[in-house]
């Protein structure tokens, strides 16, 4: 990753990092203006990020889907896009402080792998690949927004802090519902991702399921989110308890996206080996 592309990539990461820092600073020291400026930075970073994805797409001639770097680049884009959408739609600009660090983590990790452009090898030329990874990105975006909303909720209600006004109560209820809705969204798209991946695996490897470490970890992550929905719907876990669940559950997503091949060998999911 050299030249203009590399420069733009690092500038984007720095802008995101400044935006997260600014939002946390604004919240801690009560500088509301800082929070607004930071949200502007997220928007600026997102514009540059979109340019990066387009650049890579034009350069390689295919949707950036090959290798750790391209997956991190586009996966991070989805996380930021969904964070911005949720922040704007639900009026929670602070959400970026909770969700964007995951995009930074994934993109930073991607930049440490092989960033060279490669042709789309035969094994990846499948319609199901696009379905599989598109829904994976949506799911991870949804889960990250849920985690961000959960984090903000936990910070706002820490040490038993009570809401000071009816407006604050409504905002907290909204955050709780955002965490739940994002989890529902992530769970549905995650289900489609696993189903599409399984159908693709049948055509590529000859088996719907191979107990590959990445497959198993994805199923584990899906099960944990299924459990969180079950806890919410049937046992009534809400607010701080549900927030803790979605914050902890994101670990499974990070591991399945990025971590399994760092600690163990044998996965057929070549996108993760860089």
């Amino acid at each position, binding site marked *: 990753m050299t030249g203009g592309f590399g420069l733009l990539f690092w500038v984007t990461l720095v802008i995101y990092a400044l935006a997260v820092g600014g939002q946390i600073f604004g919240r801690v020291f009560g500088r509301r203006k800082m929070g607004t400026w930071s949200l502007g930075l997220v928007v600026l970073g997102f514009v540059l990020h979109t340019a990066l994805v387009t650049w890579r797409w034009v350069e390689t001639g295919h949707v950036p889907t090959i290798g750790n770097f391209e997956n991190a680049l586009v996966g991070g884009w989805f996380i930021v896009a969904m964070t911005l959408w949720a922040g704007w739609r639900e009026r929670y600009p602070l959400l970026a402080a909770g969700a964007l660090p995951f995009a930074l983590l994934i993109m930073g990790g991607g930049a440490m792998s092989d960033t060279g452009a490669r042709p789309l090898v035969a094994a990846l030329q499948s319609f199901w690949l696009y379905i599989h990874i598109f829904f994976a990105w949506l799911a991870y975006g949804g889960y990250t927004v849920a985690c961000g909303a959960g984090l903000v909720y936990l910070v706002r209600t820490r040490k038993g802090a009570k809401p000071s006004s009816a407006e604050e109560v409504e905002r907290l209820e909204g955050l709780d*519902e955002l965490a739940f809705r994002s989890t529902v969204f992530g769970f549905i798209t995650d289900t489609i991702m696993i189903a599409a991946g399984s159908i693709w695996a049948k055509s590529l490897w000859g088996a719907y399921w191979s107990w590959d470490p990445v497959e198993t970890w994805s199923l584990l992550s899906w099960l944990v989110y299924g459990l969180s929905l079950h806890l919410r719907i*049937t046992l009534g876990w809400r607010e701080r308890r549900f927030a803790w669940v979605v914050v902890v559950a994101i670990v499974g997503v990070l591991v399945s996206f990025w971590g399994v091949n760092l600690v163990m060998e044998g996965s057929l999911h070549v996108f993760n080996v860089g």
Partner: protein
Amino acid sequence: MTVRRLWKAFTAPRTTVVLLVLLAVMLLLNVVVPQEAVLGPDEFALMLTGRPAARFFLVTLGLGRLATSPVFIAVLVLFFVNLSAVLVARLGPTLRRTRMHERSEQGLAAWARMEESLSADLPAAWEPGRIVRALQGFGYRARRPGERTFWGVKHRSAPLGFLLFHLSFFLLCAGGVTIYLTRFVGTAVVTEGQEFAGQYQDVLRYAPWGGPPDLSFTLDEVEPRFEAGEPVHLGATLSILGAGSVVRRLARVNDPARWGSTIVLVQAAGIAPILWLQDAGGFTVDRVAVAARTRSSGTGLGDELPREDVTEVPLAGGRVVARIEPLAPGTPFPTREDLGTTPIRLSVVQTVEGKGGERQVLYEGSLRPGEAAPLSAGAGPAGRLVLEELRYWAGFQIIDERGGGLFMAGFLAGVLGLVWRLLLHRREVVVHWDEEEVRVVGRSEYFSGHFKRELGALFAELTDDREGRTG
């Protein structure tokens, strides 16, 4: 009493939570504990050598083959028993919730104490028809249980999504079991022009029920394509011999050839020299098509070729062996046009009788298609080895199984069930009025914030230009 207690325990939400946690722990073990399916049988066996504790956990307890271990299967069985019990217990109430049976006005009036409640002065131009229109405009199905009360339900069939989602697990399970019982996996390497009629190179799995598939085909053509040294396309055209007819099928990476319940995956390709061994009189002693290793696993920086890289071909009953080397590192994979001029580096050796298996080299060098190597060195047999032509070979995985349809139906039912249940969740609204006031109350299964906005919009439409106030 005991049966009732058991039933209650099995249908309790907490039981489901415990079983889901147990399943999650099993999956975690599947990733963390070394698995034979991931490592391969040889490496797995090597790992167990001299480690009795590992053998106890991984083999005796079955944790090294977790997917088929008794512990995992026991948890799965418990999970499905719980699922069945919950489905049976919830079937009646769920079906009842989807019906819009008559409800009493008094019963609905009790809703007025609910949180999502809005009221306003009765508009001057009030008429019940506008309620029906407004409710229908928001997707509600309306009933009039009383003179001054309307009841609307949106997505009343959504609870059926719960049943569909949970039924999908049974479909997936049935598919998985059927696949387990019927799955046969074999590999084959076939050269262009050759016929395959069950000569598997290796059988990776025999089906507990049924034998290998009845499949014969001729490999007509292989199409490999590389860009910048990366394989961007691989296809193989097969002529499958059916009942009295020949059907052509194309197998590509990601798109296997299908023949009934059998699929043929093309996974690898290489170059296949056609060699003739002739004696000094010009008579052909042997003719073979060799699926030679085409790519070297070595670095190509002067080190000796790894032994497994060289393809050894016994000729004339093993008296002579041709040793074919892979293409030199960095050499592009030959296109079909290049096959006629691509040189193959090979050596021909024979075992010298009475010298303890010593090998004598009869020829060493490169041959292009149409060229011959003289075999007259030393005490070797006079004659020659002819490289007639180069073709492509293809490596296949041949899989026969049933149950894929159940699996697909399970996926579809699962996704549809989730969307139906969670996105199209059930909502109810009651509109009640008297001479002075109109009141709208409602409840939603999930997403109360979103529902509040919808209820507000409905209320605004009902009360038109009047100002509403929260009740």
